[in-house]
């Protein structure tokens, strides 16, 4: 275009000039820069969007790869015969007799364990504490569970837990190792070689190192103790699955209720026998002082861990729906906190 006088018929006139009519040369430069600027901004924005996509692509890339290749723990639950009792609560002074009566009320151990099956029993052996201090499952309760499983014809009976304190001390001081061995169990201590990496597929936990009997067993029996817990309010059946995992525990506690449910959903036990022979009412999960312990002489058994935990919560003076993992367990379809709505048998001493 010519710089002087009105534009000729072939001069190209910028639209902006036409529209605005009286722009200066500087304004014209700005107008043409706007177009370049728009292109630059557009290109950078496209790069940003591409980066977002790349970020999503890179996220968890390694762990997803692993997850696909790792073994998954099977669902260990047994079919419920028509009309069978869901939950049994037994009170009496003899812990072993309470276990026997509770299992009988559910239809006997044969309902849960068949001849030749490999069974893993999971008590709480987390602490360097004696049975009287009520931080671990009562050894008499554990031994009776082992005897019942052996009598049902199990081909292999493992007993294990990933202790919090030094395993040698916990297994010995709790009295569980000695009692379980005498009853016929193979005790597996949580040495580094005892763990296998598996796919957890949880909301928080994707993979984890799990004690090998949980990978290999046909049936799993959970034998937790009822106790107060500083962070989750209570430690009972669902929380007991922390003890299948190796590695640093700090990660699990960052969202304790959801990580409890991730692990419970992974294991899905055949049977749970809740030990409330002695319960720890304060300063859990470690305890130590007998001033925090209450003798309850109670055993509850069944297949619904949420229901059993709801019952256990009442023993600790808690409202079950105030306990986060009970609510999350219900939401995840692991059971009902309305244990009274189940077919329940209660037997006195």
């Amino acid at each position, binding site marked *: 275009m010519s710089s002087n006088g009105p534009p000729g018929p072939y001069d190209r006139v910028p639209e902006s000039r036409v529209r605005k009519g009286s722009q200066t040369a500087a304004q014209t430069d700005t107008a043409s820069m706007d177009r370049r600027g728009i292109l630059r*901004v557009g290109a*950078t924005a496209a790069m940003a969007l591409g980066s977002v996509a790349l970020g999503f692509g890179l996220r968890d890339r*390694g762990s997803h790869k692993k997850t696909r290749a790792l073994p998954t723990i099977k669902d260990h639950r047994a079919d419920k015969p028509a009309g069978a009792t869901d939950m049994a609560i037994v009170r009496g002074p003899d812990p072993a007799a309470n276990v026997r009566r509770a299992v009988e009320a559910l239809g006997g151990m044969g309902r849960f364990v068949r001849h030749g099956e490999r069974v893993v029993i999971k008590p709480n052996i987390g602490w360097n504490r004696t049975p009287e*201090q009520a931080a671990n499952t009562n050894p008499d309760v554990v031994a009776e569970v082992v005897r019942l499983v052996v009598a049902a014809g199990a081909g292999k009976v493992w007993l294990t837990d990933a202790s*919090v304190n030094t395993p040698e001390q916990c297994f010995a001081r709790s009295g569980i190792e000695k009692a379980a061995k005498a009853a016929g169990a193979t005790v597996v201590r949580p040495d580094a070689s005892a763990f296998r990496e598996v796919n957890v597929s949880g909301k928080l936990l994707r993979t984890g190192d799990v004690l090998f009997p949980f990978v290999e067993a046909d049936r799993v029996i959970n034998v937790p103790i009822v106790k107060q817990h500083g962070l989750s309010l209570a430690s009972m059946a669902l929380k007991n699955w922390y003890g299948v995992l190796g590695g640093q525990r700090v990660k699990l*506690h960052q969202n304790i209720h959801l990580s409890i449910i991730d692990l419970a959903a992974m294991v899905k036990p055949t049977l749970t026998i809740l030990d409330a022979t002695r319960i720890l009412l304060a300063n859990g999960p470690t305890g*130590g*002082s007998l001033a925090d312990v209450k003798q309850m002489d109670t055993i509850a058994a069944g297949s619904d861990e949420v229901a059993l935990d709801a019952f256990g919560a009442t023993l600790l003076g808690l409202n079950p729906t105030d306990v986060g993992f009970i609510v999350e367990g219900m939401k995840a379809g692991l059971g009902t906190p309305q244990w009274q709505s189940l077919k329940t048998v209660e037997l006195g001493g």
Partner: protein
Amino acid sequence: MRIFILIVLALVPPAFIGWMVRQGLRSPAPAVQPAGKARPSGAEADKTLLALFQGDLAGAKVKDKVGLYDEKGLFDYIDGAAPIFIQRHYRKLAAAEMASADGADMVCDVYDMAEPANAQSIFDAEKSATAKPVPDFPDAISGPMSFVFRAGRYYVKLTAFDAKAEAALPGLAKALKGKMK
């Protein structure tokens, strides 16, 4: 303005990529924030803490070694009880299995709570309803198989496993307190 927008847009992608990758490699943020308060210098405080287990302790001896636990490690020792210590600006725990003069086993846990007020706070929080105050031993309670006290910035929990060890706890407590002056 345009330059500013360009700079922001240029910085967003690497920051976002970094954030996404990091999210994928770690677990969610801790539920309990670490204490922001200034603490005693680490190495010096550790030395002082470990020194409590040396010398005469009413005949009691460390059986193996004294374990030191920081905030992360505390979960590996006391599991879900850790947050109530961390919330109170806990610095470090020294823990040891000990044998009394007559060979009975007991456990000695000394929590360095960084400040006396923090030690008082955890002492009050963990006080069992049925535990009894100890005559001539301020800020101490004893329950069956247990002796708990606070001295300065330390909170101490002693645990016994039988009657012999239980009888040795007050002597060990007194000896430890003497070293905390």
